[in-house]
């Protein structure tokens, strides 16, 4: 019965809009989520699992582990990401960031005592993650349709391929594989997930409470975050374009100025 329902939802696609409605078609293409019904089902399953397992575990982690220790755990996990980070910076042709990342790794592995302390950030070498999904984007690969992966969350074909490539490129995974320490890979993934959930307890609560459609909110946030990561918007000198379109003049008079609001509406309707 359950498998029947699953097969049913696998076959379902988001219903395409009426082709004569140009704006609706444009919106459908921009959202680019043809598997929306299936994605929503997986999202609900992920949320249910989060509610029962991950969120309580993250709360327990916050409650039971002292902050200094949690900071060190996050720092060690971060140190482990730096080889793949540097490799991707190289593949993107960003020699400066590759050097920066190697420097960060060396400083934190030595002065930071095997990554327990993040000395590099204080020295002006802050973390900026680069993954193979970003590298593919820099090479001109489009992201493709939105995908909600079981357990792993929001993705798309480009970033999914990126994850797999990063997994095989990571020296940590080779070390674990060669020395038959597969548990090390699972432990790292588990602790990393726990750390992420603990750091975002308030944020996720806030988003769940303030959004009308949490699924659509997460989809939009995922795309925007990836866009910012690809353009290195967090650290580069380039200023992001203001998100509200160019034709959109600020209307300052607001509630008092209904007249000017009407003017604005009629001018955009032309």
């Amino acid at each position: 019965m359950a498998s029947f329902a699953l097969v049913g939802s696998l076959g379902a696609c988001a219903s395409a809009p009426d082709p004569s409605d140009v704006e609706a078609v444009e919106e459908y293409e921009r959202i680019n989520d043809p598997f929306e019904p299936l994605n929503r089902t997986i999202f609900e399953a992920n949320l249910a699992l989060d509610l029962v397992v991950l969120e309580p575990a993250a709360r327990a982690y916050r409650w039971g582990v002292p902050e200094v220790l949690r900071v060190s755990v996050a720092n060690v996990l971060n140190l482990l990401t730096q080889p793949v980070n540097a490799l991707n910076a190289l593949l993107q042709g960003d020699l400066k960031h590759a050097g920066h990342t190697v420097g960060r790794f060396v400083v934190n592995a030595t002065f930071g005592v095997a990554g327990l302390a993040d000395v590099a950030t204080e020295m002006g070498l802050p973390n900026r993650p680069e993954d193979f999904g970003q590298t593919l984007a820099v090479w001109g690969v489009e992201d493709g349709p939105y995908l909600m992966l079981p357990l792993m969350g929001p993705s798309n074909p480009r970033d999914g391929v990126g994850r797999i490539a990063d997994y095989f490129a990571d020296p940590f995974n080779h070390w674990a594989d060669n020395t038959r320490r597969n548990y090390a890979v699972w432990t790292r993934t588990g602790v990393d997930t726990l750390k992420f959930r603990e750091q975002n307890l308030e944020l996720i609560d806030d988003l769940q409470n303030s959004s009308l459609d949490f699924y659509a909110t997460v989809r939009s946030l995922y795309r925007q975050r990836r866009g910012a990561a690809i353009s290195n918007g967090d650290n580069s000198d380039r200023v992001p374009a203001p998100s509200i379109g160019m034709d959109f003049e600020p209307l300052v008079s607001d509630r008092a100025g209904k007249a000017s609001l009407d003017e604005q509406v009629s001018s955009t309707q032309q």
Partner: protein
Amino acid sequence: MNKFRQRSNNSKFLGIQARGFAATVAIAMVMAATAIFFAGPARADMAAMESSSTQFVEALATDALSALTDPEIPRDIRVKQFRVLFNERFAVTTIGRFVLGRHWKDATKEEQDEYLALFETLMVRTYVDRFEQYSGETLEMVRAVADKDTRATVQTKLIRPDISKPPVRMDWVIGAKGDEMKVIDVAVEGTSMAQTLRADFASIIRQKGTGLTGLIEALKDKLKSIEAS
């Protein structure tokens, strides 16, 4: 004879060059004057927009903290105080309209007004709830970049007292009209509030298929569930 001719040719050649040089100087002077008349004041206006928008964000942070984080003041008074501040400092109608996108023009005037009132209430409630968790964060100004003399993006860093959490980058898009300034968008780590709300609301409208009416119902339900919690 030959020599003279050659010299004359030379001087003619030099003459042309001299005239060309004079013309170049004249063009350069006109261009410089134009630059001073147009680009000069425009750049000065951009710089003025950058510094005044930074002051605006700094004042907003101070005022929001005093309106929202005083535990002596009861919650309903804090909500009222913040509502005044929010309408004064945020371009509520502009944001609300942008968030609605193409669905704005299809709605009636009454629907638009009802939607804007609900949108404003939801924003005020959301921000008040966010500040409930305030625990000593400070907003550090990084820099401001104007893209025209009436709009600038003020980059800030939210510094958290908890050392395990890295600072959060917040970009404030500030619009100016005359002497007034208002926030038109806030981007947290590259994610725009206006864009995210637009995606959220558009999805509700698409699913309900009843235009703005469906969204108004969803907003009412959301506010009811917030009140209940």
